[in-house]
């Protein structure tokens, strides 16, 4: 049965249905619907809900529950996620599965509470110290938020790795019909590493500290092998109208929804525009972008940032075609008109550009 839920509430309910029984958080707009939902829902399923004294406390509580083998989650928005970075590095270094939700708001600093995508670098390049990655999933609707949170717990357990859901204020706040239709079917390895009490078995150790020379390098090599495996198997993206596109847009989350509108409007004017929407930001869908770059005139990356994901697009393209960028910052959300205008500037001689320009100039 479908329910009308905010993206934030969809994330919370999906976590419950995925078996998450430990939630720790500290309030911050624009993700408060998530912590609020958890505060009454967790007791219903005999789970633990703690409004921690700080974001730092919350992420370390997640560490504790994850080490004991539980499915644990925390959520916050940009400034709060910055506070959690030390804990995330420790979780990655201890190979502990957990889910962290970041409903991004404008930055830097305290910023504002509007939608933003300026935490991309922080999410996909590490954020904390050390050579590590978290798996980063970027939902584009309330329904996809539910689906991805569900998958996030499975991915976390499968790879013993933290998973981050990277949303934004708009994805968190919008209200859409949501259906919880995922079933517990996926096989997951038993947690034969969890700290469950050593009576009658060998002791187990969860740590991220390797002081003996050589051990840490060996452990890092193991992590890198794991990350390579994730890159090989877990890339997700949505591709629209790729077969004859002259220009391909690359965008995720809220920006991607606006770009879908752009694609639709452009096609009405016979301007061939396609869209690649990365669903996993790490691992990044490099292959599809590289192969598309061979046959299109150019690529346009659209973000609510000063230009972050565009760097990964350029790394994937490796000069095969020009890569352009359009972005808004500080809580600004691009309009489809702005993106269309940018497209006509990139391809002024395209046959459809003239009529498209009229569409934009009428406004």
């Amino acid at each position: 049965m479908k329910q009308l839920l905010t993206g934030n509430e969809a994330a919370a309910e999906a976590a419950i249905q995925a078996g998450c029984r430990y939630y720790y958080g500290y309030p911050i707009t624009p993700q408060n619907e998530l912590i609020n939902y958890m505060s009454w829902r967790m007791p219903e399923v005999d789970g633990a809900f703690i409004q921690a004294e700080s974001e730092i406390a919350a992420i370390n509580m997640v560490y504790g529950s994850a080490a004991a083998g539980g499915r644990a989650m925390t959520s916050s928005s940009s400034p709060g996620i910055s506070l959690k970075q030390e804990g995330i590095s420790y979780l990655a270094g201890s190979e502990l599965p957990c889910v962290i939700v970041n409903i991004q708001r404008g930055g830097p600093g305290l910023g504002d509470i509007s939608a933003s995508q300026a935490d991309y670098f922080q999410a996909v390049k590490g954020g904390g110290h050390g050579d590590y990655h978290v798996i980063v999933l970027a939902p584009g609707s309330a329904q996809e938020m539910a689906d991805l949170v569900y998958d996030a717990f499975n991915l976390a357990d499968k790879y013993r790795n933290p998973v981050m859901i990277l949303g934004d204020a708009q994805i968190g706040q919008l209200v859409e019909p949501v259906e919880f239709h995922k079933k517990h079917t996926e096989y997951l390895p038993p947690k034969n590493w969890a700290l469950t009490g050593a009576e009658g078995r060998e002791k187990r150790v969860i740590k991220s500290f390797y002081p003996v020379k050589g051990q840490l390098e060996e452990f890092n090599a193991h992590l890198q092998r794991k990350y390579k495996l994730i890159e090989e198997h877990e890339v997700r993206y949505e591709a629209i109208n790729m077969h004859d596109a002259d220009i391909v847009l690359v965008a995720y989350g809220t920006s991607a929804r606006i770009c879908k509108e752009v694609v639709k409007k452009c096609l009405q004017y016979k301007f061939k525009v396609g869209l690649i929407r990365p669903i996993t930001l790490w691992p990044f869908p490099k292959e599809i972008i590289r192969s598309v770059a061979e046959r299109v005139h150019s690529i346009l990356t659209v973000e609510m940032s000063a230009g972050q994901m565009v760097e990964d697009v350029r790394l994937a393209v490796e000069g095969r075609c020009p890569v352009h960028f359009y972005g808004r910052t500080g809580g600004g959300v691009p309009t489809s008109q702005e993106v269309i205008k940018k497209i006509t500037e990139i391809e002024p001689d395209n046959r459809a550009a003239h009529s498209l320009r009229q569409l934009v100039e009428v406004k």
Partner: protein
Amino acid sequence: MTEKIILAGFGGQGMMLLGKLLAQAAMTEGKYVTYFPSYGTEVRGGTAVYHLIISNEEIFSPLIEETDTLIVMNQPSYQKYKGMLKHQGLLLLNSSMIKVNDLHEAHICKIPATEIASKLGNVLVSNIVMLGAYLTVKKLFSADMILDQLREMLKGKKTNLFAINKQALESGIQIVKSLS
């Protein structure tokens, strides 16, 4: 079919609920729907605005750039959002609190919603008066369906509020019929 609606009023005029009832109706009928409420650093008495899109097709951007319908409850909301209405769109306004000061190439529907609600005995149902009016102009959903939802929503402690909400909805329907 795609219907884009911007709803605005001051906090407390029930725009959130109005939008939610329409969104719920759309979902029940199996349509796509996206409802984007304003949030955050609002002040009491300040403007609250909601973007509601109902469609038979997938909805892309949840933010409306040009709206088919504008439902406004007070003067500041009217001033702020009148420019977003598309050519020949529907402007549904609470004439108890709004003075039209612009030439609109639009279908204007002036509903004295605050006045009607006050006469019914509860100013808080002015939003439901507007809903009745909207349903009569656009005919997207039946009044019966909306009443079923209201009944469901007011179950329990608020059951006694159903009667006045029903009256408010019917008043909204009647006034549009009498205007046309």
